[in-house]
């Protein structure tokens, strides 16, 4: 039962082969038995799940249908869930029971999805390895000694371990696509503004975007359908109609122009990954796609710009965690400043504190122009590169990551080494473009992902290409041993 995809579950529920309640119980039992090895969940919401499952079964019985009705999912633990701990992977919010539901949570609940729990993540979504969580590192189901990627490492590991078919996640610099690549999943970061950020605890507001993590493009289409849409509570949400993502999956990709940026194949890229990328290109060519070499000349400048902009926004976003109205408060503060400094010093982990300090510095008097403003200018150069490229091609293809998942602890204490792993993913966040990672092979038994990027609001195109690829390859069907 646990091997089913969202699409298969929807068919099974519609055909009355099993109930949502049965499925939910089976999956919860499996999580309880196996998750101690993976550590993908921060909280299991068993009671809520069972009541939602029963309600979904009742809705089905009364004739209702829907791809998500009774479908088990989990939320990355930065989506606020009313009355349920929403920790952001931080000691700061270990005691935080959110007083409201995020829009994404409310929309999926309304569609009948069943929430099994809240998944582990890098603290405040800051990390690419899921090692910075207050609740401990998440293990990669493909090799428990390796990281699952981050920051949505818990969502990725849970889906990869077949604990559930799909989970919500967020992506600020690659936090959906990179863990998808590391755990053999399909993950989509939508266009900035496509999915509401209301109730999604912010890391870097102009870069954050929620999206689905699942095993197939088909499932990503189903979950995205439930997440996407305009929200009047989010000023940056875009009031554009949401197309039917499942309907366009089977469109032919004959004549599709795919651009492969030459800058992506720099010495930093593991040559074995380069080869798998080329294989995927050949596969798509067989399906009728036209391949073109393109150039993104400013690609290499993305990392320094990103590691100024994201911390700058974070330094301000995280000021609200002050021990006054919610969250962690230090013991016996001797005065107000002590309350602030110790609550924050004790509540935030090392990487979060580093990024807050980098951000505060980049915005401070005398440094704003050299850091923050400069980074915003580079941001425009990067966007301009993409706009020019999309004049020539429909989709851009390349590796999702320069290397496969590293060993837990291998990059601890060396933030730069970890930052450099984001080389291919952060440009989509800086430009606000949709991006998808799909399974494309293995290196040393560890999964490798290929990334597809498209113009604004062309999520449907990305899912279409990935689905066509998955109809003709079987990488995405491989299961990690022991799960």
């Amino acid at each position, binding site marked *: 039962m646990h091997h089913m995809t969202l699409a298969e579950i929807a068919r099974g529920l519609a055909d009355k082969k099993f109930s949502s309640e049965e499925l939910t119980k089976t999956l919860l039992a499996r999580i309880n038995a196996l998750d101690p090895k993976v550590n993908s969940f921060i909280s299991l919401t068993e009671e809520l799940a069972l009541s939602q499952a029963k309600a979904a079964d009742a809705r089905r019985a009364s004739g209702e249908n829907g791809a998500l009705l009774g479908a088990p999912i989990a939320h990355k633990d930065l989506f606020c869930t009313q009355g349920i701990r929403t920790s952001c992977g931080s000691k700061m919010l270990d005691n935080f029971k959110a007083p409201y539901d995020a829009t994404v949570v409310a929309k999926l609940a309304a569609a009948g999805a069943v929430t099994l729990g809240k998944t582990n993540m890098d603290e405040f979504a800051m990390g690419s390895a899921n090692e910075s969580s207050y609740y401990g590192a998440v293990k990669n189901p493909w090799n428990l000694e390796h990281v699952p990627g981050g920051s949505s490492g818990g969502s990725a590991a849970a889906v990869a371990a077949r604990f559930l078919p799909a989970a919500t996640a967020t992506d600020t610099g690659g936090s959906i696509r990179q863990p998808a690549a590391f755990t053999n999943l399909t993950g989509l970061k939508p266009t900035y503004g496509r999915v509401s950020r*209301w109730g999604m605890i912010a890391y870097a507001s102009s870069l954050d975007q929620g999206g689905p993590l699942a095993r197939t493009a088909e499932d990503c289409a189903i979950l995205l359908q439930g997440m996407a849409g305009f929200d009047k509570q989010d000023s*940056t949400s875009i009031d554009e109609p949401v197309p039917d993502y499942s309907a366009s999956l089977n469109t032919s990709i004959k004549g599709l122009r795919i651009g492969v940026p030459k800058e992506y194949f720099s010495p930093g890229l593991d040559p074995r990954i380069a080869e798998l990328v080329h294989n995927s290109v050949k596969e798509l060519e067989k399906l009728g796609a036209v391949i073109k070499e393109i150039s993104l000349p400013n690609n290499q400048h993305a990392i320094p710009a990103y590691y100024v902009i994201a911390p700058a926004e974070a330094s301000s976003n995280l*000021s609200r965690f002050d021990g006054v109205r919610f969250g962690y408060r230090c013991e016996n503060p001797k005065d107000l400043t002590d309350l602030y400094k110790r609550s924050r010093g004790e509540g935030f982990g090392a990487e979060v504190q580093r990024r807050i300090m980098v951000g505060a510095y980049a915005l401070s008097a005398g440094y704003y122009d050299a850091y923050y403003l400069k980074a915003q200018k580079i941001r425009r150069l990067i966007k301009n590169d993409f706009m020019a490229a999309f004049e020539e091609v429909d989709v851009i293809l390349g590796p999702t990551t320069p290397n496969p998942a590293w060993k837990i602890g291998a990059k601890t204490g060396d933030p730069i080494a970890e930052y450099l792993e984001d080389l291919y993913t952060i440009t989509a966040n800086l430009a606000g473009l949709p991006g998808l990672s799909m399974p494309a092979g293995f290196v040393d038994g560890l999964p490798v992902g290929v990334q597809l990027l498209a113009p604004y609001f062309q999520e449907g195109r990305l899912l279409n290409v990935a689905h066509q690829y998955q109809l003709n390859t079987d990488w995405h069907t491989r299961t990690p041993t022991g799960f």
Partner: protein
Amino acid sequence: MQWEVVIGLEIHTQLATQSKIFSGSATTFGSEPNTQASLVDLGMPGVLPVLNQEAVRMAVMFGLAIDAEIGQHNVFARKNYFYPDLPKGYQISQMELPIVGKGYLDIPLEDGTIKRVGVTRAHLEEDAGKSLHEEFNGATGIDLNRAGTPLLEIVSEPDMRSAKEAVAYVKTIHALVRYLGICDGNMAEGSLRCDCNVSVRPKGQVEYGTRCEIKNVNSFRFIEKAINTEVRRQIELIEDGGKVIQQTRLYDPNKDETRAMRSKEEANDYRYFPDPDLLPVVIEDSFLNDVRATLPELPPQKRERFQAQFGLSVYDASVLASSREQADYFEKVVSIAGDAKLAANWVMVELGSLLNKQGLEIDEAPVTAEQLGGMLLRIKDNTISGKIAKTVFEAMASGEGSADEIIDKRGLKQVTDSGAISAVLDEMLAANAEQVEQYRAADEAKRGKMFGFFVGQAMKASKGKANPQQVNELLKSKLEG
């Protein structure tokens, strides 16, 4: 040494919207603590701001009223600092691209002249909550009801040269925002708050002296006192060989002194940057035109019209135009009575002192404009004299009805029957035979003085009701005779 005072003001006006600038919470004053603090106002994790259209409209209205350039592409920025009444750890404000750019205000001074004061800019921002210091065993209580109330911060050029000018400027702003209906102007409730930047320099020096900012001065009287106190402090300091340090200070009205704020001792680095949760606000020409069409006649135009239309002095016209309610009251009186100078005089002097005595605003006046107009008609048609009118006015103020009713009930109608006046005069002259003899014996110059005595006696004898002009004429002929 001769010192010159330089003053610039930052005025925070709470905009009179129903809901907050970035959330749907009510802005009502005086509610139970934290009952008007929503998820957004509390800065809960994951919440986002959405801008209130009415706040934008009101800011634009103000900008148009001061002839300012409107920032048709304006941007919200975050001002970062930690303070318990600032829930997010930053205030959403505007920095580089405010909604209102350079403009000016013409302020009427007491000497009847008009001074033009530059407005550097005005920007939208959110108000902070309140810290309550009492009764918590050494702790401070935080009420976030006010957090997120829309503010328009109006920043002046350092154009004022005395505390009196500063007060005149604040009064002009106060009148203007109430005219526009964008702020209730209630200073006691903090709807309009003033930060005063004060410096002194030797007369003739071009460079400004080091300034101090006096935070949150909340009445016209305290603005004047706080500035004068601070000016004295700075001059004494410099004359004693000291130096003014740039500082934020608080005015203590009880001790009539300013003191440095401890919480502002360290220089703040606010790390302003564009708020990534909000997009640039674009104000289309059509929006601008719509707002322009709703602008009421403003104090300067009204003042000029009063001067031209009614022949009033600058001073009278500007006093009457200083509040919309007073101007409306005045115009209503004129429309009934038809005599603008008479109306101006009664509104400013008699009504003014009555309101002052009773501590009332003009819209609470115990004598309505209709009542006053009706009474002025009776002065004009000689039914009552100006003197009797004061009695009628007082009676109207204590609720005895219209002027006509009071005149009738109390028998205050002026006596214009020559026969009746003549009889009263004869009686009076008979009673003062000796004075009549003296008058007749006196020369022209002396007679002039003595004549007043007989008029007084005549008015007294008629209980003030005799028509003064007739009394004059008849008396003259009787005495001559």
